[in-house]
């Protein structure tokens, strides 16, 4: 090491070309300099959500792309079936928390990198935890988890009075997903590009078999397996819930499914197929995870530095029949309840809930009747069912300001009826309520800080 110090060997030899040199196809705020590289290293905190197939790759890729302050969150423990792709884990790690082992392995190999593992559910963290990161990278395999993080990131977003997003409140996300030879990588800048909810239709609901088919007219191996899993198990085991990770439970379902298949003359029930159906196993390989994670990492680096153009905004990859990659530019859903600005309403602190509902009916943009109103998941007033209506009726004469916890401004969701093409249709609206005369203090604070 000492001899080569004369030529100043640098770990960032390759990355420096990108971050220290001016470029032509770069973002408007790209400022190439050693300072930029050091800022990424020292100050850009990135959260990796999931330490599975994508998460392992993301941690390695980010660490080798100049990000030295990473956190990783995952509630799972390592399983044998992870080892064909989750390259940070070894056979002897089976049973240990993924987040902890992944963080340790990357730190062992790349000096100067600090990774904080969080072995817990994403819901276990306070919302504020997520606000500490510059960018959130998602390596998840479920729609629900993506939705959750998307909701959290979008909850930081604020709009100005012209419905333009306030730049400093935008929490960028990069999201990857894979299935077999296929995958996607996308960039979500809440308020600028579509959020996960805007394009939720990209994830079609899972097909479920009708129970009568399972019970009366089974035709396929999957029907026999789901019969054993969903119907027979409860009949036979009453209180005990089925646990897909319990090998005895799985074996029982397999045996029952095999019996049923034989009874009806249906071929194809195997133990492996039973596991696949019951656990809804998605096939996964190292190469696809590598491709998608690398694409996500490149975009993370671009968001942090503007060292090149940003992908806008949804990349799909399909390697099963030839090689197809495509970038589609999806557009935001202007009325998105998660990332949209909603309708801004300013009221006095004295306005009661009943008065507020009258305002909604008269509001030219809304014309919203029969309103049911929720605030942060709490029902303020419900039109139905009668039990809920009765429970919330007493709120009608209370000031909205108090019902909303005396916040100067916050979001509420309203379900009701409105007019569309001269027809009454049901609708769900997001409203940004601000109260006159109480918003000064917090705003002045932020202004002073800037």
């Amino acid at each position, binding site marked *: *090491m000492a001899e080569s110090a004369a030529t100043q060997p640098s770990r960032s030899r*390759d990355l420096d070309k990108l971050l220290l040199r001016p470029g032509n196809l770069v973002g408007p705020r790209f400022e190439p300099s050693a300072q930029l590289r050091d800022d990424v290293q020292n100050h850009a905190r990135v959260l990796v959500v999931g330490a599975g197939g994508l998460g392992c790759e993301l941690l390695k890729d980010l660490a080798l792309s100049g990000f030295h302050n990473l956190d990783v969150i995952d509630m799972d423990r390592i399983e044998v079936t992870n080892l064909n792709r989750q390259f940070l884990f070894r056979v002897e790690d089976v049973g240990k928390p993924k987040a902890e082992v992944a963080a340790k392995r990357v730190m062992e190999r790349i*000096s100067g990198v600090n990774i904080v593992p969080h072995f817990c559910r994403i819901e276990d963290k306070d919302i504020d935890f997520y606000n500490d990161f510059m960018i959130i990278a998602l390596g998840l395999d479920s729609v629900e988890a993506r939705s959750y993080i998307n909701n959290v990131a979008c909850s930081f977003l604020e709009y100005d009075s012209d419905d333009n997003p306030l730049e400093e409140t935008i929490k960028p996300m990069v999201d990857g997903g894979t299935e077999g030879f296929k995958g996607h990588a996308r960039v979500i800048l809440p308020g600028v590009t579509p959020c996960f909810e805007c394009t939720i239709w990209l994830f079609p609901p899972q097909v479920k078999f009708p129970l009568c088919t399972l019970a009366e007219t089974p035709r396929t191996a999957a029907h026999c397996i789901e019969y054993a899993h969903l119907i027979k198990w409860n009949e036979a085991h009453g209180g005990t819930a089925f646990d897909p990770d319990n090998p005895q439970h799985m074996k029982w379902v397999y045996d029952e499914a095999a019996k049923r298949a034989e009874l009806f003359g249906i071929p194809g029930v195997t133990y*492996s197929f039973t596991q696949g159906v019951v656990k809804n196993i998605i096939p996964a390989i190292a190469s696809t995870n*590598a491709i998608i994670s690398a694409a996500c990492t490149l975009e993370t680096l671009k968001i942090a530095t503007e060292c090149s*153009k*940003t992908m806008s905004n949804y990349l799909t990859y399909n390697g*099963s029949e030839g090689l197809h990659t495509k970038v*589609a530019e999806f557009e935001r859903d202007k009325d998105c309840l998660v990332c949209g600005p909603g309708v801004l309403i300013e009221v006095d602190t004295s306005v009661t809930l009943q008065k507020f509902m009258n305002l909604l009916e008269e509001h030219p943009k809304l014309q919203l009747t029969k309103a049911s109103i929720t605030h942060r998941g709490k029902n303020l007033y419900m039109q139905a069912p009668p039990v809920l209506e009765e429970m919330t009726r007493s709120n009608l004469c209370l000031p909205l300001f108090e019902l909303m916890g005396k916040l100067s401004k916050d979001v509420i969701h309203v379900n009701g009826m409105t007019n569309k093409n001269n027809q009454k249709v049901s609708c769900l609206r997001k409203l940004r309520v601000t109260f006159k005369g109480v918003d000064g203090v917090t705003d002045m604070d932020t202004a002073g800080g800037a």
Partner: protein
Amino acid sequence: MAEPKVKYDRQLRIWGEQGQAALEKSSICLLNCGPTGSETLKNLVLGGIGSITVVDGSKVEVGDLGNNFLVDESSVGQSKAKCVSSFLQELNDSVKAKFVEEYPEALIETNPSFFSQFTLVIATQLVESSMIKLDRICREANVILIFARSYGLTGFVRISLKEHTVIESKPEHFLDDLRLNNPWLELKSFADSIDLTVQDPVAHKHIPYVVILVKMADEWAKSHGGKLPSTREQKKEFKDLLKARMVSQDEDNYKEAIEASFKVFAPRGISLDLQRILNDSSSEVDSNSSDFWVLVAALKEFIANEGGGEAPLEGSIPDMTSSTEQYINLQNIYLAKAEADFLVMEQLVRSILKKIGRDSNSIPKATIRSFCKNARKLRVCRYRSIEDEFNSPNLPELQKYLTDEDSSSGGATFVGRGAMAPPKPLNFHIAVGIYILLRAVDRFAANYNSFPGQFDSATDEDIPRLKSAAISLLSDLGCNGTALAEDLINEMCRFGAAELHAVAALVGGIASQEVIKLITRQFVPMSGTYIFNGIDHKSQLLSL
């Protein structure tokens, strides 16, 4: 003992035991183990490839620690090939890992026979002259070759071998083989045994749609001179007839029949893609022909004779609303026909093998069976030699890429609902520009002994030098007067041959996925040259 199988569970669900066995039998050679090569091999080692041989003559430098996960601090000063291969061994002990501390360029020059021991060679970060030589060697030795290169925010992947044939192409969307437009005798008589006017409503709504459509098509043909519906009006009329047979709104089997009625209207016989394979001169077989082409020769005879214009029946049916009994019966009718077709095909194969002087049992039953099941989905991929492409690229294509701004051929259209921005002109310019510049940097390096922008001191003078290298390359290729975007030339100089980890992981990921398809002989490998564009991710396949 069961452990390896469990470890590979998630991939066995994609390529099965047979695909896995092919991977475990293969031996792979990697040339240059920088991040691109290391990442390619990492993905394959995890999947349980048989053996690897890492060839690299360089020592690990401090700079390598910043872009290659497979080397660490303790590796500095040691053989890179040795360090990478020992880390890969750590990832999977069922893989045999070896290394050769030698520069690939030297090996290509001095020991070409070295490469013939491998199933496949992955050549990373090679310059043009070495690519051409290695390609010649591998073609001669029938070794599959794949090139991968990362260069700044760009890169490419290119497969090279004479021919790759696929029986199990496993397309995602492929019409099932129900023969509703051309039912055979047993299927017809089964349909005839079922009464569509059955009074019992439960029985009525459990008649499988296959039976409904076979019967209704037969009825239609009888009153239309033996013809099936072909015009738009006739098709609508046919669907209305189906609708009229419903006795209640909740009959899913009839809804399925209406939805599937296009299968009755579809033309009989084989697809154009399959016809093209049958017409290929390789289907005139002799003792040198591969098993695939022997099977194609048999298929050709089958279609012309016993098949009556159709390929052997696939034999599987999709799930559909039905009573269990009728569904199982139907399944058995399809299976029986597939088995009968297979037996005919087997005879044809055996007799062709005999005719060309081979052992008539030299193609296993299981292979013939799989071939019959996949006969409609066969794929043949051929790749130009690197030398041919480099010296005489497909000029019309090249011109088209250089000038075409039309997005219709590969634009960002996306099937689905929801709001989409209008498709923007998808810039082939950038992809083909990257292609030209990736070749120009090699010419540059041949002249100046370094890549443009490789050293901070010379970046400014390198820009015009790279530009003139690109212009002279274009003119050599016959594209005089074509301009490349200045911005892109500047960017290539800025990249200075940097191998960024994320780009290497991406390019290596693609290369490893192609390797898997080539070795398992499942799915369809890419064609042409994949140009990776990490600037805005508008990457392209170029067929030159």
